[in-house]
């Protein structure tokens, strides 16, 4: 047995993975959060002790359910991997930012950039969802199979019941009717294709710059 397997077995046998690590994780999170929020005040040291007791009790309840611990392990490991991917992206983007000059746009471009920034933040928060999906499905082939079956089932029902051609024809008819009877309102501003390409990229370049300022 090589040393890495020995360490892994030793850690598993002595409850490092199932007791110590999850305890540290959850306890520090709960205690730190309670201290920071100061839900029952921060005026006396006794309250800090109470926060510690509350955190320990909740942590032990959490540790009592081993499946929750395994779920957490899968969840945080995948989440870390996503963080690592974002870290690599930001690192290379920061490198490229040094040798390129930012696009100086007008006010409209700044609006596009702000919207793109919001979209990027939204996409980054999706990392949590992906990690949760991974932890729920445990392996990707299982997750892929389940997703495949759902899509195929919908297609099969649509074809076998004869709904698919009806939906297509009704959709086309609705489109035609809308096009015929739609009254054009006040002229909307034209979307600039160039901005749609450059603004998200500029928002990406801004993320490492903002991080540096912190």
């Amino acid at each position, binding site marked *: 047995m090589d040393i890495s397997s020995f360490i892994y077995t030793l850690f598993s046998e002595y409850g490092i*993975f199932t007791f110590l690590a999850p305890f540290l994780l959850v306890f520090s999170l709960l205690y730190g959060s309670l201290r920071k929020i100061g839900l029952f005040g921060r005026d006396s040291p006794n309250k800090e002790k109470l926060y510690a007791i509350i955190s320990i009790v909740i942590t032990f309840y959490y540790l009592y359910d081993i499946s929750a611990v395994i779920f957490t392990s899968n969840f945080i490991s995948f989440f870390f991997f996503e963080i690592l991917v974002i870290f690599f992206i930001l690192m290379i983007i920061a490198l490229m930012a040094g040798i390129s000059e930012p696009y100086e746009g007008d006010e409209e471009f700044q609006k596009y950039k702000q919207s793109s920034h919001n979209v990027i933040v939204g996409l980054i928060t999706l990392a949590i969802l992906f990690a949760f999906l991974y932890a729920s499905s445990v392996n*990707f082939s299982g997750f892929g199979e389940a997703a495949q079956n759902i899509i195929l089932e919908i297609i099969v029902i649509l074809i076998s019941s004869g709904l698919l051609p009806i939906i297509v024809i009704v959709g086309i008819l609705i*489109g035609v009717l809308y096009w015929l009877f739609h009254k054009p309102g006040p002229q909307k501003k034209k979307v600039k294709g160039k901005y749609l390409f450059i603004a998200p990229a500029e928002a990406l370049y801004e993320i490492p710059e903002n991080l540096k300022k912190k």
Partner: protein
Amino acid sequence: MITNIGPLSQQITSIQVNFNQILSQYGIIDVVLPFLLIFSLVFMLLELSNLLKTSPNDVVGRKLSALFAFGFALLSLYNQNLIKWLVSFIPNATIVILVFFLLAITLALTNKKVPGVLRAFFAFLIVGIILWLTINSLSITGSSTKSPLTYYLLAEINSLMQSGILSSLITVVTIFIFLILVIMWVISSGEKKEEEEGEIKGPLLVRSR
């Protein structure tokens, strides 16, 4: 095919094997390196966000951040898949960093900064490459064997094809869509011409005549 490997390449191969053996034998690849990476990244993020600190100089908060990162790193190691992902992803991502660094060096020769559009292209290229590497290292695929539903779907499509319903339906829908597109194109080009004619061009004095 080269059969005669020179002594230098043999030496390099043996050194590499020994180095790799040492790395994996003593748990450096499986335990030490991932632990250090996870701990440092998570601790850095917590310090950056000040999530567990009541004030910037809060010592207890910093210790709690360190404890959280320690627990996070240990618990992450419990999932052995993570080690596989890291081993597969990090070397490739490092090569990408190297490629872009060399590109930066080459562009520095021109003594001019990259303009906005090209800069945007590079950003998308970086994101695309890294995401592609991620998917490769995670090997996100469906099942290799066909599910019963796939067979059912294929059989359904086959029977429809043989009976000629599907092909006739597709033909009708395609013709229908084509006709609509032609009508829309004809009408919209007329509208554009009208707009162009209605547009004010040239100096005001000339047009007022």
